[in-house]
């Protein structure tokens, strides 16, 4: 697959703050890419630089084979779907969607019949039929989302940037729009770059997932790789499914505040050393239970648990006050009752641990 968008060494600063610090990036054609990053990691800045709303201090942006670093946004043919949708408040749903075709500087559509056909096709593609004449204040959040998407897609951009597109929707709608976004993308055959702060959204939607950390791309890979083999403690932290211990390498294991923790295989290279174990790889046992040779075991005091339907998340306080989370999937076992303030043993297999050093 050839790359539709390539960024090399892109730097953007605001005063002293380096919002983008040498971004290297290459996005494949016709795929769904999600960009995960905590707030303040530079996600929105990256999108705005790609769209052309912000000028980077240095670096090159190549889009479908051309250097677009100095091209104004309206000549880039990159669609942008705003977080707050940014619909034109004085125009109807139909006119919002027709705006780009009628008003673009390059090759505007003047044939009213063609325009009407294109707009109506797009309206039915995103499922807005019957709402053409409504004002944008008279439609629901999900419908606004669709108008924003349709308005961009109808201009047939070669790539669409979505800035937390599901952030303004309620949880139910968010889940439905996820599959719909993927479906719409497949029908259009263009690359979507979807920025989100939610790790589940990023993993669920992206064919490729990018993780942005402190103004740099920390990792790029498919969902499975990102989830199971995060390349740094920071990435593991964003995924929100790893217990992390800081410490340093020692003989026969990794030395942390909890003592020497064993692991198998080679540690991964990373700037700040850490030991990570996934929430759902931990077994809870009565205190004092014996661990087998291939296991690591620590102790903690049970604080509380959280029932999420398919799983129970139990929280333990370790001796140094750190909170340790365990996720038990209920498809395997019935929920167990733990007593608050009582000590339990927490055990996991050495081979399940990830070590960064």
């Amino acid at each position: 697959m050839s790359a539709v968008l390539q960024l090399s060494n892109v730097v953007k600063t605001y005063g002293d703050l380096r919002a983008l610090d040498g971004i290297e990036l290459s996005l494949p054609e016709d795929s769904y890419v999600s960009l995960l990053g905590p707030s303040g990691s530079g996600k929105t800045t990256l999108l705005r630089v790609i769209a052309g709303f912000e000028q980077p201090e240095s670096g090159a942006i190549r889009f479908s084979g051309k250097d677009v670093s100095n091209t104004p946004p309206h000549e880039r043919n990159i669609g942008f779907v705003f977080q707050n949708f940014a619909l034109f408040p004085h125009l109807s749903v139909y006119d919002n969607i027709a705006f780009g075709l009628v008003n673009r500087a390059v090759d505007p559509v003047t044939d009213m019949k063609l325009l009407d056909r294109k707009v109506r096709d797009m309206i039915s593609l995103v499922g807005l039929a019957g709402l053409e004449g409504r004002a944008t204040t008279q439609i629901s959040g999900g419908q606004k989302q669709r108008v924003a998407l349709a308005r961009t897609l109808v201009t047939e951009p070669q790539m669409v940037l979505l800035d937390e597109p599901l952030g303004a929707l309620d949880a139910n709608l968010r889940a439905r729009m996820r599959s719909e976004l993927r479906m719409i993308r497949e029908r259009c055959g263009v690359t979507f770059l979807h920025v989100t702060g939610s790790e589940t959204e990023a993993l669920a939607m992206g064919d490729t997932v990018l993780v942005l950390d402190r103004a740099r791309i920390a990792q790029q890979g498919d969902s499975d790789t990102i989830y199971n083999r995060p390349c740094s403690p920071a990435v593991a932290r964003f995924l929100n499914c790893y217990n992390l211990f800081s410490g340093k390498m020692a003989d026969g294991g990794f030395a942390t505040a909890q003592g020497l923790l064993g692991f198998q295989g080679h540690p991964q290279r990373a700037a700040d050393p850490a030991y990570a174990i996934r929430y759902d790889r931990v077994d809870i046992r009565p205190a004092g239970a014996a661990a087998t040779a291939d296991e690591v075991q620590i102790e903690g005091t049970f604080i509380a648990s959280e029932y999420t339907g398919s799983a129970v998340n139990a929280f333990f306080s370790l001796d140094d006050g750190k909170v340790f989370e365990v996720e038990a999937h209920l498809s395997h076992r019935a929920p167990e009752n733990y007593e608050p303030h009582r000590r339990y043993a927490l055990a996991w297999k050495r081979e399940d641990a990830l070590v960064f050093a």
Partner: protein
Amino acid sequence: MTMTAVTEEIKTEKAAANGPSGKTLWLLAPGVLWMLLFLVLPLAMMLYVSFWTQTTFKIEPTLTLKSWITFFTSDTYLGALWTTVRIWLIVLAATVVVGYPAALFVGLFVKNKTLQTVLLVLCVIPFWTSFLIRVLAWRPMLGKEGAINMILMKIGIISQPIEVLLFSELSVIIGMTQIYCVFMVGPIAFMLGRIDPSIIEAAKDLGAGFWRIFRTIILPLSMPGVVVGAIFVSVMVLGEFATSAALSGRKVNLLGNIIVTQVGSLKWAFAAVAGVVLTILMGAVVAALLRVVDLRKEL
């Protein structure tokens, strides 16, 4: 639960249908009383007096159409009406032409909110001096030996002073535009400041250039500001008499000047006729402007 909610709703609706409660009436009373005594009553009185009989030295409450007929057959009065309408239209256009770009700059291109406020306050600074000084200050600017003529002659653009600058319709228009421009800038800048910047970015992203965006997005969204500004300027210019008196050397007579002269020579009936005509004109202008944009929906 649902039933009780529905009954509650019906009750509130009934209360609303029964008219405002006692408390609402008390809140309304001072305002209504004030408006009745000092707006409705004088207006009615003015209309009534316009039909009184005016003789040279006195006025009698005998109803007659004489003053009205005099007004609409006299070239002086009709000329004043026409001058008022003409100057109003020119000043209105001038304040939009001068004020809109300024408002566009303050409201849209200045991103810093503090700087925005500072610039708007700068627009208001001329109002820290009195009205008369602001008007009279134009005399040494525009006069035959005024600043503008002196400068133009010094740099050799003209050899004779331009006399039309002062004591002409032009000087009245210049003076009024300067004084009332800020009433146009304020509302427009306010509306422009409320436009979500991402809407303009979205339009750019969809491929539209600046002038397209201005015509299709910025201008329609700022129209309520233009209408509010136009109402302010219209009401003030239509009722003007001081600027024209001070800057035209009594050559330009507006309806306001007619009223002042008539009242000065105790011709109350004529003054009342001019007053009624002016009030109707203002009412029509405001009503027409409100038809352009539904302000209740926009603000």
